[in-house]
């Protein structure tokens, strides 16, 4: 399977008469872009704002982030199986990427577990979205709209807007083209039989309403683990539909920019053979956990894997899925590395996991979600600053009169991302 990512680097964003990219600036026809989402009867209101790196802006509460992408050539469309797109497999042909741009969905709170983004100041260092040119979609739900419908509406609106922006820029030739070509497992192993074959076990939050992930539009909690090609992930086959804790939710932006996929691709044919990605649910039941983790280990063995990397999403309950995956893979003789964050308490003195297993000998830490940070007031707040009281990592006293906040790191979107996207990690002191 061969996919070309045609990238247009975006270094600025502004409003203009026609949506296009010029000199690395994403110019947006505000009215036309808003029309893409404002017709949704589930919203009482919708508006668009811009937030650029370095500005004194806080965005709160942020639910999802989406990178503007669309197909230029090849079968299907990005975000297959949703927005009315056929669930046609993707990952081939050419895909346009507005690299450095992001659509952030924001609005009055859906549930507890959304987060905030600071575009400057000390909080900015913890989130990738302080470095992206952001188009912020702010909506208010229609009165009486059910939480679950509101979540779905906001999810779809973010995808629609990101797709729209990319499609409007189709005529601009890409500045760079990156090729991702990974043939069948048999061919991969034949080309470099001496290299270890590696599978990536990609755990996704699937705990039920407001904590779900969708693969080709299928609700992952109702599926068995699925073997997917990494290119499918880059074409938006996997979508975040969750309001899990902001720090370690995989936003849709993170999915298409999965750093484990990127690193396995980079080392493929050099010192490893990339065998594929197994998208697996994090079930809320023991039977579900057993079924998924046995199936993951079986798939890894079936593919002839000699190593596995497992990434978690969320903390607490899914720590058990993480342990079960590591144990079953190791029991089959497949060396395993896990990537996870820790909940070590605000003082850092508590054990960081809700579950443990001696087989989990190779652990990559993506930080303590409970560590406290102080963020100064921002000149401009997009959204609802008082929402911090209800976010995981926030409390009634978090927001001070001057607009500064004293919060747990977990309230920052993407701060302890367990795909290993950022450089943060826990160390002993």
């Amino acid at each position, binding site marked *: 399977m061969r996919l070309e990512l045609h990238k247009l680097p975006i270094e600025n964003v502004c409003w203009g008469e026609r949506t296009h990219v010029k000199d690395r600036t994403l110019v947006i026809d505000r009215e036309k872009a808003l029309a893409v989402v404002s017709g949704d009867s589930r919203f009482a209101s919708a508006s668009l704002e811009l937030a650029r790196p370095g500005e004194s802006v806080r965005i709160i509460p942020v639910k999802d982030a989406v990178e503007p992408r669309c197909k230029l050539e090849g079968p299907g469309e990005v975000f297959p199986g949703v927005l009315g797109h056929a669930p046609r497999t993707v990952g081939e042909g050419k895909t346009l990427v507005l690299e450095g741009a992001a659509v952030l969905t924001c609005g009055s709170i859906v549930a507890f577990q959304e987060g905030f983004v600071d575009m400057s100041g000390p909080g900015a260092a913890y989130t990738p979205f302080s470095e992206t040119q952001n188009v912020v979609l702010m909506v208010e739900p229609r009165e009486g709209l059910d939480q679950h419908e509101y979540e779905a509406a906001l999810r779809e609106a973010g995808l629609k807007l990101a797709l729209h922006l990319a499609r409007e820029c189709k005529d601009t030739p890409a500045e760079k083209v990156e090729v991702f070509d990974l043939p069948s497992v048999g061919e991969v192993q034949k080309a470099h039989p001496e290299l270890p074959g590696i599978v990536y076990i990609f755990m996704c939050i699937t705990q*039920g309403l407001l904590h779900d992930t969708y693969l080709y539009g299928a609700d992952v909690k109702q599926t068995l683990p699925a073997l997917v090609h990494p290119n499918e992930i880059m074409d938006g086959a996997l979508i975040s539909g969750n309001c899990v804790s902001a720090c370690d939710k995989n936003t849709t932006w993170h999915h298409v920019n999965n750093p484990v996929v990127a690193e396995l691709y980079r080392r493929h044919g050099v010192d*490893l053979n990339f065998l594929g990605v197994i998208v697996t649910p994090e079930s809320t039941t023991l039977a579900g956990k057993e079924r998924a983790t046995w199936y993951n280990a079986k798939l890894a063995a079936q593919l002839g894997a000699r190593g596995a*990397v497992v990434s978690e999403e969320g903390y607490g309950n899914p720590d058990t899925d993480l342990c079960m995956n590591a144990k079953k893979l190791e029991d089959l003789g497949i060396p395993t590395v896990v990537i996870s964050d820790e909940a070590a308490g605000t003082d*850092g003195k508590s054990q960081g996991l809700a579950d*443990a297993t001696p087989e989990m000998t190779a652990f990559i830490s993506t930080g*303590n979600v*409970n560590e406290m940070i102080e963020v100064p007031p921002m000149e401009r707040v997009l959204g609802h600053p008082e929402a911090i009281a209800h976010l995981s990592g926030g409390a009634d006293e978090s927001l001070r009169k001057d607009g500064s906040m004293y919060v747990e790191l977990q309230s920052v979107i993407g701060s302890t991302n367990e*795909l290993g996207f*950022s450089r*943060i990690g826990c160390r002993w002191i």
Partner: protein
Amino acid sequence: MAYRVVCYINQFFAGMGGEDTAHVPPEFRPEAVGPAAQLDQLLGEEATVVGTIVCGDSYYGEHLEEARKTCLELIKKAKPDLVIAGPAFNAGRYGVACGDIAAGVTQELGIPGITGMFEENPGVEMYREKCYILKAADSARGMRTSLPLMAAFGLKLLKKEALGTAEEESYFSRGIRKNFFHAENGAVRGIRMLLQKIAGEPFATEYEMPVFNKIPPAPPVKDLTKATIALCTSGGIVPFGNPDKIRVSSAESYGVYDIGELEDLNASNYESIHGGYDRVWANEDPDVVLPLDVMREMEKEGVYGKLYSKVFCTTGTGTAVAHAERFGREIGEQLKEAGVDAAILTAT
């Protein structure tokens, strides 16, 4: 003005002798004695050793409370900004004394205290969580590497410079996890670690597996029809309005609520504040998480004796295990005191 440093050494390093003088009680000398003199030089112009406490190892070990009290009083009078004890290398009694002094000044006087020990010194495990214990060799032959390390680290503390990890600063970690930024992202580190693991090469995990305390279950209730049963939940069910402001996640407290007069939980008297699950149905009927209604029915039917009049509630998401253990101990004590025979814990 230079920072003031007080050192602590034993009788041997003060040149008073070995076992024969190990019983000498603590004394303060207004000068830098033995290794303290070398530390004074290493600290340079920025800090000065203003005095040295000398104490016999046997004395300290045999009069722990008294020795600590005397030493801390002597130290307090000298008004130091930093206390350096030892290094004690692998000397057990000396290590305990150094750890006790460094921990004592840190905790009781609020003055940073540091010491140095070999990894097998019993003082390491006893005091590592209470003060900085820098890594040292197993004998005084390591003095030349140990003293510069302690002086440099001491100056960092005095100047309140940003500290690196325990490994980078070469001290025994105090058991605290702290966020740092690595040079590479987690995915890059992870794939490298995996290839090392596959190849059988050494690698350093970034988190050693914690060891869980195993709690033996209580013996079964002998006669349910006479038993008083309590309800506890980590499902975030609290009286409407969350009067104790229990956090939606990472809770550091729990609430105790009187349900003696209540027959049923409903949307107007109780609610869910839990930040980790979809609360729509729990808010419509909090009994689905904290089953007061069913417990009342069974109480009337005589299935069990009596429902305890109080419920214990917290949120169990992102909650540090250390806090959860404390909640459990405290709630258990309260239940025991109230003569409760059994408890039902509901989770979400």
